[in-house]
């Protein structure tokens, strides 16, 4: 059990990355629109985030340097600053949407309009950041997010023709009413969600918060190899159940409660309650991940004292950044913007910012000056370089595709 609890950092990171509000809706929407035609993208994304999160965790364990320190050290202050501005903006958009997501999950139970719950939600998030120790936080929300297994349960209970499901997933085709551009656009959204930079910011800073050392390299691998595939599997089950239940009825998905609909249809009330609990924990976890990441990025770029491992008064600027971010997020959501649209934009924009975060990780994990004898092997470097190429191509294609498809409309 103790061992099990030590991999909650990976689980929380992955759940916050793969199944936060934007992805929950994106996965279900993709399932309802493209069936399983884009499932392979999730697999490609899972492998990519495993490769890079393992490197980021290893660098943090061996050298004590979290990702945004590496960004500044290897890109220099100019490009580092550009990445900082972009990352803060993306974090901020995502955090705003997650605050709404938590409020929507609560509203599904409380029967009040979610906007009314937004201030309450924000206070709750801040209290967790302010008071809950880091490890307790990742255990509560990492394990809470596992309630999303209800989607997997519903999928199994639905009992699809598995041969057909696998055939659909392995022979992707584009439906008549879609075109290659919308297909590519949603593909990028799924890939961007799998590899969002805040996952490596949070994961590597979490490794520093937990004081990982050289002895924890096995723990790093366990976190990565369990957490991210689990996140990917949850994301695929949401997509699959939506494609099986919603697509035949021609129901599209554009709000969070619709995501849970197939679970209610297939498995009934108790499973629905689990799904809602899971959505609450996952969006809450993602809010923590993005809110803290904003503080981590700024703190690490400027070298401030950051983190939850010291008293709040000893990391004053870090805590002010988190508070300001949460407050601004509340303001954005209170205007009544559609939180799902907000995350969809933030995911796609983050795809455009990916190279500036992943390139320094690859460079430093090969630098014996930081890593001693724990540098990358040739196979890992080969895969990582392939992914870096892919990330660069995607970064270049993102904005044009967004314009051509009018953001997937």
């Amino acid at each position: 059990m103790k061992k099990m609890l030590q991999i909650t950092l990976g689980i929380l990171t992955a759940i916050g990355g793969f199944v936060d509000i934007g992805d929950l809706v994106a996965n279900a929407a993709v399932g309802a629109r493209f069936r399983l035609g884009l499932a392979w993208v999730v697999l490609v994304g899972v492998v990519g985030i495993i490769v890079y999160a393992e490197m980021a965790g290893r660098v943090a364990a061996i050298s004590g340097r979290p990702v945004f320190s590496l960004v500044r050290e290897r890109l220099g202050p100019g490009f580092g600053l550009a990445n900082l501005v972009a990352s803060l903006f993306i974090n901020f958009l995502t955090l705003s949407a997650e605050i709404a997501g938590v409020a929507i999950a609560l509203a599904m139970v409380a029967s009040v309009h979610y906007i009314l719950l937004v201030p309450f939600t924000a206070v709750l998030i801040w209290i967790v950041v302010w008071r809950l120790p880091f490890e307790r936080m990742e255990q509560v929300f990492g394990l809470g997010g596992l309630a999303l297994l209800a989607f997997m349960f519903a999928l199994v209970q639905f009992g699809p023709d598995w041969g057909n499901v696998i055939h659909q997933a392995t022979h992707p085709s584009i439906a008549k009413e879609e075109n290659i551009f919308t297909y590519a656009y949603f593909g990028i959204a799924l890939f961007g969600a799998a590899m969002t930079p805040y996952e490596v910011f949070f994961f590597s800073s979490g490794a520093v918060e937990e004081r990982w050392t050289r002895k924890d390299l096995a723990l790093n691998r366990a976190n990565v190899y369990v957490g991210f595939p689990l996140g990917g599997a949850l994301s695929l089950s949401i997509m699959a159940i939506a494609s099986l239940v919603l697509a035949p009825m021609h129901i599209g998905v554009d709000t969070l409660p619709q995501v849970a609909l197939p679970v209610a249809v297939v498995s009934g009330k108790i499973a629905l309650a689990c799904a809602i609990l899971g959505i609450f924990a996952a969006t809450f976890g993602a809010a923590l991940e993005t809110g803290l990441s904003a503080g981590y990025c700024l703190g690490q770029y400027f070298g401030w004292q950051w983190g939850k491992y010291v008293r709040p008064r000893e990391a004053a600027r870090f805590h002010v950044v988190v508070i300001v971010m949460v407050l601004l997020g509340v303001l954005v959501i209170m205007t009544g913007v559609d939180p799902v649209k907000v995350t969809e934009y933030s995911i796609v924009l983050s795809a455009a910012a990916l190279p500036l975060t992943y390139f320094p990780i690859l460079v430093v994990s090969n630098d014996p000056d930081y890593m001693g004898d724990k540098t990358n092997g040739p196979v890992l470097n080969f895969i990582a370089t392939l992914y870096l190429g892919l990330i660069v191509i995607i970064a270049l294609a993102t904005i044009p595709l967004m314009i051509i498809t009018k953001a997937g409309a």
Partner: protein
Amino acid sequence: MTEGRRVWAGLQLLDRQLIAHEERLAGCIDDLELIASDDGDQLHVTAILSGPGALAYRLGRRRFGRWLRRVHACASPTGDRDSTRIPFNVVTDIGSDVKLGLDAEETGSASAERWTRDHVISHIPGSGHAPE
């Protein structure tokens, strides 16, 4: 004390994290002060510049950098010493971070931190609560 060690200043010093006493994070190396040796073919690092203004100056915003530094010097309670300049002889170790034989309070990064702590964070209940 690291006496006469040869380092690749651009890669191994610039932009690295500074660590003060008690493992406190104390800013980054925003810039370096170099002095040419007597025969003129070697450069020696004499000080680390870190804190308000130093980074802006290095990024080419020279006027803004100088202004920030002046404001910071006026607001600084010590007044007598420019805390953004850290003489290189207080460096105790150079690794993936740079360790200083100083208290975090004595570095250039400390004044903004102190202000935020005293005027914002310490007014919120629980700010001194140990994180376990």
